[in-house]
């Protein structure tokens, strides 16, 4: 901290609201891409596992190993191939969502009671109809919970992406706050990240409840 300077300068915050909005936008966009791509891949993997259950073990093992790699390392490991690009950041972020999403989608689908599946078969549902009209609606609460956790985790990880030039709220924390020794920017960045993940968490929790009113009674 530069001497004689207050710990938090509101005037800086007021002057830099446009920059804050831009960084927040970058942060949300990078997070959104990661969770969306991660969900598409995870959903495809889960359908594969639904058909060939033996694939589950290897998929969990590989995604578990990816998850165990520290974000600072995974963010830079692909630089030799994909350079300092959004793609490099997204490869790392998508990798981290897989273990959460695959696990939740598969567990959700497997939690469908066997007699419900029998009933659907008895009513003449084809395999695809059964998946979309019976199994997925029943699995929905657990799937949405997975999306919620993956999103909140990703929001925290995106802060690190500033190290490879991706901006976001991490830019305020590191490139202005730490590098220029300006605590105001660091605190602003951290507070906005925490607010963002809290808002997103509550929002997805509300969506989860809205989508599955029948789960309310059991939840308690």
């Amino acid at each position: 901290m530069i001497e004689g300077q207050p710990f938090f300068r509101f005037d800086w915050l007021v002057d830099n609201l446009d920059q804050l909005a831009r960084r927040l936008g970058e942060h949300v966009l990078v997070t959104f891409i990661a969770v969306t791509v991660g969900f598409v891949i995870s959903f495809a993997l889960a359908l594969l596992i639904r058909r060939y259950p033996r694939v589950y073990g290897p998929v969990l093992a590989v995604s578990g190993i990816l998850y165990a790699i520290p974000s600072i390392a995974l963010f830079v490991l692909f630089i030799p191939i994909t350079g300092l690009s959004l793609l490099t950041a997204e490869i790392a972020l998508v990798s981290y969502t897989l273990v959460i999403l695959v696990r939740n989608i598969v567990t959700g689908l497997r939690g469908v009671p066997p007699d419900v599946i029998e009933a659907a078969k008895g009513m003449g549902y084809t395999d695809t109809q059964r998946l979309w009209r019976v199994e997925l609606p029943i699995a929905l609460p657990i799937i949405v919970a997975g999306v919620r956790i993956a999103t909140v985790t990703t929001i925290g990880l995106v802060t690190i992406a500033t190290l490879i030039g991706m901006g976001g709220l991490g830019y305020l924390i590191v490139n202005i706050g730490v590098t220029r020794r300006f605590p105001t920017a660091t605190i602003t960045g951290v507070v906005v990240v925490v607010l963002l993940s809290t808002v997103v968490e509550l929002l997805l929790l509300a969506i989860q409840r809205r989508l599955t009113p029948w789960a309310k009674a059991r939840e308690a």
Partner: protein
Amino acid sequence: MEFFGEVWTWYTDPANWSGNDGLPVRLWEHVSLSVVSLLAGLAIALPVGLYIGHTGRGARMVVAVSNIGRAVPSLGWLGIAYPISTGLFQRGGIGFLPAFIGLVALAIPPVVTNTYTGLQEVDSDLREAGRGMGMRELQLLARVEVPVALPVILAGIRVSAVAVVATAPLAALVGGGTLGAYILQGLELSDEVRVFAAAVLVALLAILTELGFAWIQRSAVSPGLSRLDDAPMTDASRVARPGELGSP
């Protein structure tokens, strides 16, 4: 393939094995900073978690604070610790100290949450039985509650340990060295070999930590306690279950 050859050359170059920027020094900075921070974090978090878990006093506030703490990104802790440290100690506040403060803050929340939750989940019949056998409060805690809650407590410690080892590279941002110093130098100089070589070492250290603590968990936990290995994540990673993962 040529690239991996260069990475290998970097590892074996004697110049990278000597001096203040050599691998032994950086590795030592990384490991010592991680160990000291984790121990300090445990020294604060375990008593707090045990106290509120056993008595239930102040639980709501501590858990709320702890949950907010878990939403702060790892980078945020170091960023906040930096001005505090330099504000308190001027130039002495650069390097080890801000990294230490940041990592201790990072290590505390998972341990508090898990210790508290683990104790809360102990079957009240077991407590009654312990009291019926004439156990005093501390005996009850040490002989009944902690052994039963051990898988959940250890899962919290594992998550903290891995988070600390994985975040320690960011110490380089505040002059704290560690293997992260190579990553930052490499990014600055566009030296992809250096970045990659260091990132591999960081990944190995974190995975070793994960495996080490998983082994401790397996060997320390009573076989009579069931494991919850493949459970879906539903509680927003607030409580790390024995088979569950922390944050990368």
